[in-house]
């Protein structure tokens, strides 16, 4: 089930949220601030999640554990 589909799905969701955060904030002294902060937050959080997810889609190495030691813990 290691597919790249979630990346696109979440991207669409995030883009939708970004559009909402552009439209929704009311006119006022904080409109620019709220807009830019929400959009940047969404973009940054998505970017980081996406990188972590994609790096583990098709990993080139596997974790190596010492089962004997870990069984004792």
């Amino acid at each position: 089930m290691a597919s790249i589909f979630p990346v696109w799905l979440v991207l669409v969701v995030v883009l939708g949220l970004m559009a909402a955060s552009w439209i929704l904030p009311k006119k006022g002294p904080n409109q620019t601030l709220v807009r830019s902060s929400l959009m940047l937050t969404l973009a940054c959080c998505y970017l980081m999640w996406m990188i972590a997810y994609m790096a583990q889609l098709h990993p080139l190495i596997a974790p190596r554990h010492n089962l004997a030691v870990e069984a004792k813990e």
Partner: protein
Amino acid sequence: MPGDAVFTEYPTLFCSEAMILVRVYIPTEQAHDTVVNLGMLRVIQFVDLNRNVSPFQRSFVGELRRLDQMKRIVRNFASQIAKDKGPISVRSLGTSPPFVITGALARQRFDELEITLREHDARLSRMTTNYESLSTRLDELLEIRSAIIESTVLFSRLEIRPSFDESSAPLLQQDDHENQLYPTDTHTAVDFIAGTIDRQRFPTLERLLWRLLRGNLHIAHTSIREPLVDAATGQTILKDVFIVFSHGSGLLSRARKATESMGGSIVPLDLDENKRMRALHAINGRIEELQAVLHSTASTRRSELAIIADSIRTWEDVIFREKLVHKALNLFRYDRRRKTLVAEGWCPRRDVSRARDTLRAVGETACSLVSPFLHELVTTKQPPTFHRTNKFTGGFQSIMDAYDTASYQEVNPGLFAVITFPFLFAVMFGDIGHGVILALMALPLVLYEDKIAELTLDDTVTPFFHGRYVILLMGIFSIYTGFIYNDIFSKTLHIFSSGWIAPSNGSGFVELVRNGRVYPFGLDPAWHGADNALVFLNSLKMKMAIVIGVAHMTFALCLQIWNHLRFNRRTDIYTQFLPQMLFFQSIFGYLCVCILYKWSVDWNAAGRSPPSLLNMLINTRFYPGQGFVQVTLLVIAFACVPWMLCAKPFLIWWERRKVNGPSYSVLDSNQSHVDANDEEEVPEQEDSDAVPDGVGEDKGFDDVLIHNAIHTIEFCLSCVSHTASYLRLWALSLAHSMLSAVLWDLTIGRQSVASAGGITGTIARAVVILGWFGITVGGLVMTEGLSTFLHAMRLHWVEANDKHFEGRGKPFRPFQLASDDDDY
């Protein structure tokens, strides 16, 4: 130009507020109150209209001098209060009754204040001098008393010694009560002088006297036990009392002079014991009297100081505010014709109506027909930059302002730093536990900010309080990145099911096997404790750093567009922005695309060996058409360099040819500013404190070429160096997680701690946990946090700002009656 600034309906942090140059005409008698009210409003930054006048020739110099004298008196009071032996409580400004400096009676009240201060000063200095002279007198008496007491020992000692010389005058054994032995008495037996001297100087004095009197003396001394205050130096030292016996008034006067030159003092002693006792009694009586007088003087002085201490903060505040007001008044110009003071200053357009209302109110309070009024001017001068911040954005804006103030109407990087700064911090700091600690440290500062703001804070704590929202956001983002890195105090969370399972046939060292799932949020916990965890993690974090870095720099590059549009440099979008973007993306954007592509392909399933990104540019192919694509991108990148280098100078040369063709000279862009309604033109104030026009195009063509060449080279090289600089996101996060892991392993993770049994084991574990927590907070959160804060700041100041920031503005410092710094 300030005239066509972006004036938005609501204040925004995106760029500076629109500022106007205003001129205020103030009737002279209302000047003081106007300035005070404008100072409380804090919307105008006054321009110095008297730049050519020296400070000593300005109109309000007399007032300032008077204020300085009052300030000197009050400072003297403060030091006297501080020096006094007992603590005198000073009433704080908050609890003192307010001293109003505006209004009809203000002048009179201020003059009364000056008189009061002078009276207090005179009284206090009188009392102080009295006290000091009485103190000196007391010390002298104490010295004489000690000398009398100790000399008894000397005289008694001398009486035991037998006499060797019978032909000489009778010695002391002769109990000659009737003879008063004074130094001037020549017919009596043995003359002497007595005195006291610093113990350390006594040997020198002895030697001096021997030499001076050629051995015709007998000197005896003993030490005074209590330390005495030396009259000359004022210090408490140990003294000796001595007696010098010799013949003749000549020798004795020589001895007396020698003593005085060595800093000793002569004490009148009587040979007769009873007379000495009587003298002692008399001195004791005088000492007691003197002490009583001193005591009452001291207490009167103290009560005087207490009265002063009750009002001293008010006085300091009044004098400080008046000084500010008069310094501002000195900036104004006096219009003799109309008998008004003229002030000029910068004011945000949004606040002009408030200023007008205030001025009208001043006029009404003064019950005058004429009130001060405000006039907007049209000018080409560069206004100061004003970003209207609130308590939340203030911290972030000050971080970016510390580098440079944004040019007037330039894109303000502080707006975006509200999110990017905590985010980049968190990428380097990612740990759920540490993030929670950081957020919890900032939370009380935020929740109780009203109460804390009233306290006067220490200088080391103030930055943390001003940056409380920054720290809070840093903590919250760190919690998020902690979930991504799956790191909580160097342990992992198993929220979802892992994508790896142990192979069925393994024991000892095994490689886990995929089970088809991908850990949906963050790093798979199967990596925790794996031998090769770092191999995977380093690869992940390095690539993450590059991708985030390229994204941040692309974003910063795009901010240029607004600046080019705003400052009427449309062509710069094609000659600067476009080649820069193409160059950057064709190399590093391509790199990021390749990173993401390599991640998205299942190499094992495709049966191909995964290509190394390092070698990608050199030989291997990992997608069809790669060769063609890469060559094209390289060509684009190379083409951008001459594009950046030459396009802009060429355009400028082309335009100048068109303008200079008909042999006109380029118009001078610094015109004198003209009143909107007024016909008369105000003579240009040369080099006022406003910044020259933003871009400054009237340099020679060679300058433009050189400037562009430097800019091109700088950009191309910095592409590489800045991208590599973002690798600190990886480096610091690695260091942080390693430190955290080591700390755990050395404290709580130790076998001996974890498995110790019984009560002692529990206590030991508790102690170790406390120690671990202390080091976590002090070392990992605070120290690592500060270091990470610095790195995140650097990334914003250098890597991001380099792509768009011009930073040639001056900050807006409105006139206010509070202090910016502690210069009182």
